[in-house]
């Protein structure tokens, strides 16, 4: 679950980093403007196959493993999953702190990072390193990354198969959603919480909101354009969600924390999710990660939101 945060709360972490930076280094030099990383669908036909890859975000690492390119990984991020059969791989940092020297020492021919900030910190070695910071926030991003990493690591066929699996799972979920709608089922209103104090929730442009749309549920905060807005608790109550998926970081890791989260919602018996016992404290990183586990994420969301279909 620890990895989730690096995918779930980019806004929060950026906010924290900014606040700290403002306090600690208010007089520091201006941050150089980020150079746009090559897009994921760039023409890579003439590029040699990457044989030493440093992957500093869980979604990239999971994708490399899923397309059979685990052998090419020479370094991973601090919060990435273990690479099967590659115990002892060096862990090199995360989105906000990465050591250029450590990365260079591994002599990678491809470095994958999740933020433009990390890409900037590797810029001094741009003549020796190829650094990619492709967007990783949406379903389309996940499919583009699968295809691109397949080409770059010489695993095109496995990548195509994975992309097909993801698309098929999406199509199947959409089709089931249409069936439910056709049989008169109302789209349930779902509130996805990623932090309780203050309350951070999934907004319209979050990855999990895309998944909700795919399975035929309504995101309770679809009117807020941001991916992870800080929402007024009053608004959360007034929106009367039918289901609350509470993935509040930290609190959901212990039994006492989970009980405290449920108690927090019990204060509002007027909310349908509370009244009907549909406040679900979850620890599902797949639903927050635009990576190869999209089929798993869709299945999980459907089982949580439409339990009657999964009896």
């Amino acid at each position, binding site marked *: 679950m620890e990895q989730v945060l690096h995918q779930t709360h980019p806004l929060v972490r950026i*906010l924290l980093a900014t606040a700290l930076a403002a306090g*600690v280094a208010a007089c520091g030099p201006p941050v150089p403007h980020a150079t746009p990383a090559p897009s994921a669908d760039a023409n890579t036909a003439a590029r040699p196959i990457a044989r030493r890859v440093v992957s500093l975000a869980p979604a990239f690492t999971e994708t490399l493993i899923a397309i059979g390119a685990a052998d090419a990984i020479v370094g991973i991020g601090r919060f990435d999953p273990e690479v099967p059969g590659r115990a002892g791989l060096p862990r090199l940092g995360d989105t906000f702190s990465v050591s250029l020297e450590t990365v260079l020492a591994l002599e990678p021919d491809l470095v994958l990072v999740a933020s433009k900030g990390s890409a900037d910190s590797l810029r001094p070695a741009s003549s020796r390193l190829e650094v990619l910071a492709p967007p990783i926030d949406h379903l389309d991003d996940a499919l583009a990354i699968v295809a691109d990493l397949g080409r770059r690591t010489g695993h095109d066929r496995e990548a195509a198969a994975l992309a097909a699996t993801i698309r098929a799972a999406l199509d199947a979920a959409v089709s089931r959603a249409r069936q439910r709608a056709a049989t008169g089922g109302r789209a349930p209103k779902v509130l996805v919480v990623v932090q309780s104090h203050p309350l951070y929730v999934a907004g319209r442009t979050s990855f999990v909101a895309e998944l909700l749309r795919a399975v035929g549920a309504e995101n309770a905060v679809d009117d807020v354009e941001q991916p992870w807005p800080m929402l007024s608790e*009053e608004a959360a109550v*007034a929106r009367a969600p039918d289901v609350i998926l509470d993935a509040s970081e930290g609190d959901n890791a212990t039994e006492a924390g989970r009980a405290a989260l449920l108690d927090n919602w019990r204060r509002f018996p007027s909310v349908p999710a509370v009244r009907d016992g549909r406040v679900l404290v979850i620890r599902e990183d797949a639903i927050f990660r635009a990576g190869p586990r999209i089929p798993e994420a869709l299945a999980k969301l459907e089982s949580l939101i439409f339990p009657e279909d999964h009896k």
Partner: protein
Amino acid sequence: MTAASRPAPFSRERFVRVLAAGVIVALVAVAASLAFGAERVDAFAVLTGGGTQVEREILLSLRLPRVLTGALVGAGLAAAGVAFQALLRNPLAEPYLLGISGGGSLGAVLSIVLLGAGGAGFLAVRTVAALVGCLVALWLVYAIATRGGTLRPATLLLAGVVVNSFFLAGLACVQFAATPTESQAILRWVLGGLETGGPREVVVLAIVVPAGIALLGRWSPSLHALVFGEETARHLGVDVDGVRRRTFVVASAVTAASVAVAGPIGFVGLVVPHAVRMFVGSDPRMLLPASALAGAAFLPIADAAARTALAPREMPVGVVTAMIGAPAFLLLIVRRSERGVGETVGGTESFRG
């Protein structure tokens, strides 16, 4: 500032009048804060036993504890500001600017990381940890500013800024070393906010803050004597060292309780006493209770703005107080430099027992 330079002398009748006015302002502000929020709620109907169930839940379970938390934190920070300003003989002294809030934040964060005290049940542990942080920060700043035997106001503020930076760097270190889960919790201690104010927090604050303000109020005649310098205060029979020690500890405890619940909310201890000073003068006997009441009005109103400006989204109330406080601080510095450095609080006032 003519009112501040020629204040009416302290008298019991004036004290009662000012306090009554303060209570009315605080009550009106609390009532107004209850009436406004992200959602439209008929507060009057709910408070008179009516309203829908949703309205009752929003007003009684969410808005009321939050407004009360804001009132208590605002009162505490404003009173602590008055105490620090009188004690350090510097009108720019304030828990946040002196690094005391930063020390408290780091204490709270360390208790979360080392003891896992992030949950509501650990509020007492967090308060004690915040108090230790506040006292360490205060000791550092004070020790630096009094090297050589005398308290130098300019050094005091510089030391506060540097100590604050040091604690922020400490927070950054902990954040980088922490797991993502812990760094989520740490975020609260950088920005500050009142959204954690529940019934339990209100109870803790309702004990610590009024008790602290009452003690500070009781010592305010000695604080007033200190305004004229240590020697004068000693001649007037004030136990200078004792009062200083006690006031430091109690003002820090009030700050610590506020920080343990709401994180570091800046500038309340600066803006509120200065605004109040324009009306009641600089005598801590009058200024301290009046500022506490004005703080109890100011923070709930600032939080109501933070709750409603971007609704249904929210912003931390510390953003609002900094937007008001930082320009006010700059204005004070400009005025001060025009009048000459080294001026002390209430230097033109006469002392009457």
